[in-house]
């Protein structure tokens, strides 16, 4: 996969993903508000879980893509992989932000606090910090041709850190018990909930795919413009 193989425009595939996402989100919203029953302990409030958990999962998946793309870039030295890594990182941060804010909104009515040091939520916070750092590096180092390599290194180290972060926070929490904010812990999923969850997950997954493709297309166009500009100014100088 070379840079030139990345399309510099919106493709049919991308449009299909958008359409599927659109339908999926509409359907999910309908199911969430009209179909699934209240949860035994949490009442109506828990419904935010249908977007909270998928957002977290997709953010994690995006960072996994950053990891793989970073390794591929360092190995093959192909800018296409670098563009994938950068775009996936942006996507990951967006979904991590969503996960954190929905998590906070969920915690408030249930536990009366805006934040719980729940291992999953806290790991998400650390991930958010790591990848915001990644994006800052990209922003601050934008003039440097080495920034892609630096960012790849950060992308690799950051992802390898994730399991260690998770376990250390998990054990830390067992010393200092805090409210648990996750399904499977203190609430069971009825079949309706499972179906709705999967539909919401699929919808957001399609949305991610669409956004990733669009972001890649934008990057490709940007790179082309830059190249043309440089070629023009070189000709003028010669």
């Amino acid at each position, binding site marked *: 996969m070379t840079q030139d193989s990345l399309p510099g425009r919106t493709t049919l595939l991308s449009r299909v993903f958008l359409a599927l996402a659109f339908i999926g989100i509409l359907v999910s919203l309908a199911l969430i508000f009209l179909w699934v029953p209240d949860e035994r302990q949490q009442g109506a409030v828990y419904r935010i879980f249908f977007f909270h958990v998928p957002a977290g999962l997709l953010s994690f998946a995006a960072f996994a893509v950053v990891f793989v793309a970073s390794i591929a870039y360092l190995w093959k030295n192909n800018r296409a992989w670098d563009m994938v890594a950068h775009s996936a990182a942006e996507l990951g941060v967006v979904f991590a932000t969503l996960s954190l804010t929905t998590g906070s909104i969920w915690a408030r009515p249930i536990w009366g606090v805006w934040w719980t040091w729940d291992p999953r939520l806290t790991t998400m916070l650390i991930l958010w910090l790591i990848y915001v750092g990644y994006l800052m590096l990209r922003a601050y180092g934008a003039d440097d041709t080495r920034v892609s*390599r630096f960012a790849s290194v950060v992308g690799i180290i950051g992802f390898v850190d994730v399991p260690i972060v998770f376990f250390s926070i998990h054990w830390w929490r067992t010393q200092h018990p805090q409210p648990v904010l996750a399904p499977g812990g203190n609430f069971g999923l009825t079949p309706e909930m499972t179906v709705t969850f999967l539909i919401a997950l699929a919808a957001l997954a399609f949305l991610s795919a669409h956004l990733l493709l669009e972001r890649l297309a934008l990057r490709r166009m940007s790179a082309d413009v830059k190249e043309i500009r440089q070629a023009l100014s070189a000709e003028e100088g010669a």
Partner: protein
Amino acid sequence: MKDYFAGIMAVLWKDVLSELRTKDILLSVFVFALLSLVIFSFALRTDRATVAIIAPGVLWAAFSFSGVLALNRAFATEREKGSLEGLVITPVPRDVIYFGKMLGVLLFMLAAEIMLLPVFVVLFNVALDVPRLLLIIFLATLGFASVGTVFSAIAVNTRSREIMLPVLFLPVVVPVIISAVEASARVMTGDPWDSLTVWLQVLVAFDVIFVVVSSLVFEYVLEE
């Protein structure tokens, strides 16, 4: 193999010699950590009941922030004189450069932290089981140095390097900080060895994983 270690020792010797002449890192780390401890003493309630609870956290907060300072200086001299290129062109494997720099930073951070311990004991009135605490300090500082060396080499090549280093470094070493604080707290309250093992395991795991990963990726930071 002998050549490999000789290369690492050469880089280490060079850094130690420079540092002994300027005392740059030692002084900045020591003074900054000292200031942090003092500020924390004022900022947090330190009556007898609470001091035992907050002391380990304060110690590691001070070490973490001053650690960032030490790492900032690790590649500063190379950057100023372009000597990083001078290292790159030497006929040594890239991880020789990594280990040489990393051991240097580790040494300086450890030296400053050890100098700080008596001050900590005095200010916070804690009793210390020194050997166990030293083990924790060594393992945690190794964790700092392992990824810190890579991030320092990256940050030194970026605009706004003073902010880039802590932004990259601190989130990644959260497991080290958590483990160091938990283990230190148990040492300070005289808990049995068993209660420490899980935290020591996290530290050792972090150290092993990240020394290996860092030594592998470091060459990509040096290339152009």
